[in-house]
Every structure is written in C-alpha cells, then in structure tokens.
C-alpha cells in the first residue's frame, strides 16, 4: 500500500515535555542525527498511523524564534524552508504565558499550527484552569489536551494533525498578533513596498517578512537584500525609515516594542482563557529547592550527588569493565591458540582486538554516566548545578553548565566531551571541549604512578596532586585566553529557566542511554579500528629486521644447556628450569625491544628525538608517548617493552629498569607534564571531531595541547636544570 506521506514538526519550549511526547509518538522508531553543519541534535521518527506515513521531527526546544542561538535558527529554518505539513506546538499549561510567546511567533509565520496543551492536569492542581475552546478560538488554532508522562492524548493529537494537514490552506489574518496602530501602519507600509519591489520572489509570508525586517532580523534581512538586485539600496533605505518611524514614536528599538506588545497580546488572551482560583496549593518544586539550592547545604548536597555519580560510573562500572576485559582476553587467547602464526594473526590480535578492546571497556562507564546525566537533566537538577556553579565557572569565562563535563574529564574525556551537548551556546561548547582534556583522565594515572613511584617514592602522592592541579590551572588560563582571543564574545547570558522538578520517565532515560552508547560504539569503532591498525602497522613493520644478536640461537642454546645439565635432584631441576625460563624471557624481552626500536615506530621515535631532547625525553620516551595516542594506558606498556621489562610484576621490573636508565627525576617531571597536557587519545579526538563538527577545531585542540605540553615541559625542565636539580 502506498500511503500518503506527511511531515509533522514538534516545536516547544525546553522542559515543555516535548521530548516525552516525541518518545511517546515514535517509540523505538527514532533516528538521531545532527542538523547539517551544527551540533544540535536532530531527532526524527517515521510511523504509520491512520493510513499515513508520518515523519515526526523533534525541533530543538526554544523559547522564541528570534535567531540568537543555533537551536532557534535551526528550528525556524526548518519551519520556514522545509515546509512541514503541520507544526505541533507543545504548550506547557503550567507555564502558559511564556509558552504562548513561541506560539504567537509560530502563528505569525505562515504555517499550519496545532497546539498540544500539555500537562493541563498539573496546572489544574495548581489552581489554573485553561479553557481550551476559548484559547483555540482566540488564536484560531486547534488545541488538543495531552499529558505526556501518562501517554494521554497522543492519538487525538495525531488525528488532529492529519486533519489539519489535509484541510485547505486557510489562514486568516484577523487573529494574528495585532500591534498598536503606529506599528501596524509601519508594517503595512513596508509590506506593501516589498510586495511591489519583490513580487513573486519573496520566499516567506509578506506580513511576516515586513515584521522581521522592522525587527532588524539579520537572517531575513540578508535574504531579502540578496534577492533585491539593483533595488538593494532603495530597500535598505525603506527598512531604515520604517524602523525610524517606530523609534521616533516609542523612543526604543522596534524589536523591543514589538516583544512588549506580543506579551501584551498574550496577556489579553490569558485573561480571557484562564481562570485562576484563589487557593494555591503547596509548590513542591519550590520546597525541594529550599533544600537543594540552600545557602548552607546546597553545595554539600551537590558534592554528594557528584561523588555518587563518580562512584557509580567508575566503581560500579569496574565490574562490567572487568567482564569485558575477560571476554576480550578470552577471545585473543583462543585466537592465539588456534590460529597459525602469521602476519594476519598479529594484525588481528595486536592491532584490531587490542585496539578495539581498549576502547570497548569504556562502554559500561559511558552507559552509567549517561544514565546519571539523563537523570540529572530529566529531574531538572542539571539547571540547579549550573545555578550553584555559575559564579565559579563565570570566572573562567564559562557557563555554569560547563562544570559537569569538565568534572567528568577526570574520569574519561570521551563521555565528558559528549556531555558538553547540554551547553546551549556554541562558543561555550567549543571552549569547554578544548579545555576538558586538561582535566587529567584516569587512563593517565598508571603513567603517573610508575614515574612518580620510581623517582619520588615517598612524595609520589604530592607530585601527582601537583600534576592534577597544573592541569586545572592551565585549563583556567586557557579558558581566559581563548575567551579574549579566538572565542571572544560574551559567554552566553545566564538567562536560564529553573524548571520544576519532575519524576524522570524510565523510557526517556533508557532511550537517552541507548542513543549515546550506539553512537559511541558505531563512530568510535570506526576511527579506533583504523587508528589502532595504523599504530600496529608502525610497530610491526618492517618485518625483515636484521637483529644485532641471534636471539633464536641464544634461546636454543639455553634450552640445550638445560637438557644437558639435568641434575638428579628434583628441587635443583626445578630451580634450573626456573632460571632458564627467566633467562629466555629476558632474551625475548631484549628481542622485542630491538624489534620495536627498529620498527617504523622506533625509527619515527628516533627521528623525533631532537624534538624531545630539549625537554629531557629520550627516543624511548618519545615512542612511548606516540603509542599513547591510541590510549594513554599503552604508554606504560610501551615503556615496558622498550626497557625490556619482563616477568610477572612488569611494573616493578619497569621501575627497576627506569631507575637504572639515564632518566632523572627532573626529566621524569618533564615527561609527567608532557603526558598531562599533550594531545588527547584517539577516542577523545574522534569525539571532539564528532561533537564540534569541525576538523579545524579538532586540529586546533591537538596542536594547542601538544605545543602547550612542549612549552611547559621545556620551561619546567630548564628552570629545574637552572636551579640545579
């Protein structure tokens, strides 16, 4: 059956219950992507109802359609350019006046609008009764009652939407927003003028275009002027005159006057369509806030919540992480046993499985973390964290909401950067993404432990603490620096709604979690796979290395000697066997070290040695740092290989090897600083690229962090030398 296709867009304020309604309507049939070119999430779902194929688009939640934020531009452009058959405006009944502001703007654009009056039951319990028929009549827009979190009214909503889509286009001008006579005169004049100047070519509704031009809407203005050809000058003058006409009469900018009048118009509607009963019930949300944003206990509670989130993410996450590690290990052991030795086996084991395995272990953390974050968001607590932290974050030039992602950076940068999506302003988002990697992630800790343990023994804890602190300080400096240069501009104004607390819905939390993990697995999988294979190839090739010693013969020799000696005494035999095994292991380690040294990776390391020499890091260190590009944990194991550290306790062996090498405590500090700051791991870079949608910023992040790392390490190393360390 070839059913008719309709496009329905959902518009509404943030926290209006729009996402819940979208989830109810589309269920599991949703596709999450991005609006082209921007980091705003685009959700759509296709469902079949009443013989129609309905494509439902969840527009970003906005308070208005004035193109200030990316969300508003995206939402408005979709309504204007994609011409959805119907726009459903979700109106939060307990927040009617402000919801109607967006509604009047939608009403002004020439599109078919339907109101979903959501959560009217809640408004009623607060003593607010909304007369839907009156509202519908006053704005000439059909109204359907819905209760999103109880899944009520969804079918009626779709039926009405289809009915409206099929109805002949008939939008009366009479019930649109009416401005005061002076403004109406200016609008009508300009409308008449553009009608004559640009007949046929006008992309939007005439009245709306005139209103937007008077409001000095940059996007509409550019669009109209680009169409106007040689009449450009004349049109520009006309717009200026119309604006001047209003400014002369009201002594303020036209856009301000018109916003004022829209609210006046809304106040009129509310007066007629709403009855408020005197008895006000207790506002639960307000009471919760008496505790959660309390002057004295607000912060301690916040710290407990964050601590809990960390505990859940990294402590509870440890168990499934171990299971995954065991599985990956089992797979690689099985392959190790059953595949014949070959290049392919090496690629599969040390490239693909090792690489992907090192990333997939983060999946449990990401699931749990996003569970917590969706809980924070869906309950409304996220806005409170921003409210509490804004003063501190504002000092770095950031919004209070940047706090959570930055904090998560101490765990793992990948989910941390994914969490920057909660930020509304693009500049804030870029800045937060750029400084989050300076929050030293947990994968760097093993490196710190090995180096400080070797060189600072008793004071290791203090040194590690200073390293973490250095990261935080440099992120603050970077934040301030970028705010005044590349990302200049006001950090987003803190005009933020503190939505009422709500009980989160399991469905929405699960959908949220699932979307994130799917994205993580899919996108990270690709990049990580390719990256790991490249790193593997660099360290596995060339195959025809001429070794300085004949390792094979040496091992053979040891085995032969063991066979010849064979003492009669069982204990002696056992100890001899152990000795031989240890000797063979050492030779194998030396062979592996030489193999890596002579591989492309080792060659590259030696090539880069002059770059690292000024900061006191030798070629071994530079190879290890390069391998850390795949995942920071690998730095330690690469160091282990290069220093030929073998045996059961590799860390101990590495420590012994390091302390007898020519590495000094000072060069260790230099390396620590470099590890703290230099380019993030592959998974993080892939995430940065994904979240910022820009290779330019990704490259900047890599370049900036690495050069900063070098400069700071250089300063540390040389001032240390100067001071005689």
């Amino acid at each position, binding site marked *: 059956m070839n059913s008719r296709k309709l496009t329905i867009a959902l518009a509404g304020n943030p926290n209006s219950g729009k996402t819940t309604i979208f989830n109810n309507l589309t269920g599991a049939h949703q596709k999450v992507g991005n609006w082209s070119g921007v980091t705003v999430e685009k959700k759509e779902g296709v469902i079949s109802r009443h013989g129609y194929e309905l494509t439902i688009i969840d527009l970003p939640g906005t308070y208005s359609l004035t193109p200030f934020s990316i969300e508003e531009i995206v939402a408005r452009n979709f309504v204007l350019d994609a011409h959805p058959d119907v726009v459903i405006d979700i109106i939060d009944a307990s927040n009617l006046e402000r919801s109607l502001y967006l509604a009047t703007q939608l009403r002004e654009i020439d599109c078919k609008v339907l109101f979903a009056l959501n959560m009217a039951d809640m408004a009623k319990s607060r003593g607010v009764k909304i007369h839907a028929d009156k509202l519908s009549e006053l704005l000439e827009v059909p109204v359907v009652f819905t209760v999103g979190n109880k899944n009520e009214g969804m079918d009626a909503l779709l039926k009405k939407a289809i009915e409206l889509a099929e109805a002949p286009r008939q939008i009366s001008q009479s019930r649109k927003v009416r401005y005061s006579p002076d403004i109406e005169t200016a609008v009508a004049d300009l409308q008449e003028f553009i009608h004559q100047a640009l007949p046929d070519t006008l992309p939007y509704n005439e009245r709306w275009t005139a209103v937007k031009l008077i409001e000095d809407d940059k996007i509409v203005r550019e669009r109209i002027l680009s169409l106007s050809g040689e009449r450009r000058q004349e049109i520009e003058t006309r717009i200026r005159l119309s604006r001047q006409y209003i400014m002369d009469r009201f002594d303020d900018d036209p856009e301000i006057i018109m916003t004022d009048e829209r609210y006046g118009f809304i106040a009129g509607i509310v007066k007629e369509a709403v009855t408020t009963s005197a008895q006000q019930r207790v506002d639960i949300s307000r009471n919760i806030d008496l505790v959660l944003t309390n*002057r004295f206990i607000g912060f301690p509670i916040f710290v407990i919540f964050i601590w809990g989130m960390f505990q859940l993410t990294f402590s509870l996450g440890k168990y499934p992480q171990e299971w995954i590690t065991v599985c990956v290990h089992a797979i690689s052991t099985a392959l190790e046993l059953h595949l014949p030795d070959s290049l392919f086996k090496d690629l599969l084991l040390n490239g693909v499985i090792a690489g992907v395995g090192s990333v997939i272990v983060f999946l449990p953390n990401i699931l749990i973390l996003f569970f917590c974050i969706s809980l924070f968001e869906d309950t409304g607590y996220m806005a409170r964290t921003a409210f509490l932290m*804004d*003063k501190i974050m504002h000092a770095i030039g950031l919004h209070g909401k940047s706090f959570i992602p930055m904090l998560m950076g101490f765990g793992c940068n990948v989910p941390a950067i994914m969490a920057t999506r909660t930020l509304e302003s693009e500049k804030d988002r870029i800045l937060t993404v750029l400084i989050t990697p300076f929050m030293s992630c947990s994968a760097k800790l093993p490196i710190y432990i090995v180096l400080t343990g070797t060189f600072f023994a008793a004071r290791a804890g203090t040194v590690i603490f200073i390293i973490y602190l250095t990261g935080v300080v440099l992120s603050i400096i970077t934040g301030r620096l970028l705010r005044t240069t590349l990302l200049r501009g006001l950090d987003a104004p803190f005009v933020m*709604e503190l939505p009422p607390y709500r009980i989160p819905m399991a469905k929405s939390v699960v959908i949220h979690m699932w979307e994130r993990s799917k994205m993580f697995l899919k996108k990270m999988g690709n990049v990580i796979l390719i990256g790991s294979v490249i790193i593997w190839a660099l360290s596995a090739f060339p195959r025809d290395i001429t070794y300085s010693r004949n390792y094979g013969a040496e091992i053979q020799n040891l085995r032969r000697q063991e066979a010849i000696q064979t003492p009669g005494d069982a204990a002696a035999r056992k100890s001899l066997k152990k000795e031989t095994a240890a000797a063979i292991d050492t030779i194998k380690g030396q062979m592996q070290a030489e193999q890596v040294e002579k591989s492309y990776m080792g060659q590259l390391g030696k090539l880069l040695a002059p770059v690292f020499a000024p900061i006191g890091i030798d070629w071994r260190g530079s190879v290890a740092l390069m391998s850390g590009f795949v995942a920071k944990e690998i730095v330690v194991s690469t160091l282990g290989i290069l220093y030929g550290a073998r045996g059961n306790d590799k860390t101990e062996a590495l420590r012994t090897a390091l302390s007898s090498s020519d590495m000094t405590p000072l060069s260790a500090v230099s390396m620590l600083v470099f590890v703290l700051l230099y380019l993030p791991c592959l998974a993080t870079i892939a995430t940065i690229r994904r979240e910022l949608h820009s290779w330019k910023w990704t490259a900047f992040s890599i370049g900036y962090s690495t050069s900063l790392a070098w400069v700071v390490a250089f300063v540390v190393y040389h001032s240390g030398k100067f001071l005689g360390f």
Partner: protein
Amino acid sequence: MLLSDIREGQNARIVRVGGNGALRRRIFEMGIIHGAEVHVEKYAPLKDPLELIVKGYHLSLRVEEAAQITVEPV
C-alpha cells in the same frame, strides 16, 4: 532602584531593561517586560546568580544582568 538591589523574598515591578541588544531582547522574551512583576526568590549560595519568579515560572539571572534592570519595589 536596580533589580540587583532587591533582597531575597521581595517583589518588584520592572521599569526599564537596559543593556546591549541581544541580551536585552532575550530578557524581554523570557517575560521580563515593562510592568511585569517579579519576585526575588533567592540568591545562589555564592551570591550570584539570583533566582526570580516571573509570570509563574522560575528564572535565573546573573547579578551583572540584573544590575541593568531598573525596578520599583512593590
């Protein structure tokens, strides 16, 4: 009198919203318009930002933003 001078728990009526274009417009669009009555619910623990109740919902503003809004106490 400025909105930032109003103490916790007091009400005020908006007289004038100052400031630059975009921010000013945003504040207007959130319902802080001439003549609107606002209730200063509380200041954050670090004294910035502050929480208002306007048109029946809760909104937070930084003190520096509130300092651009002229009000009269009611």
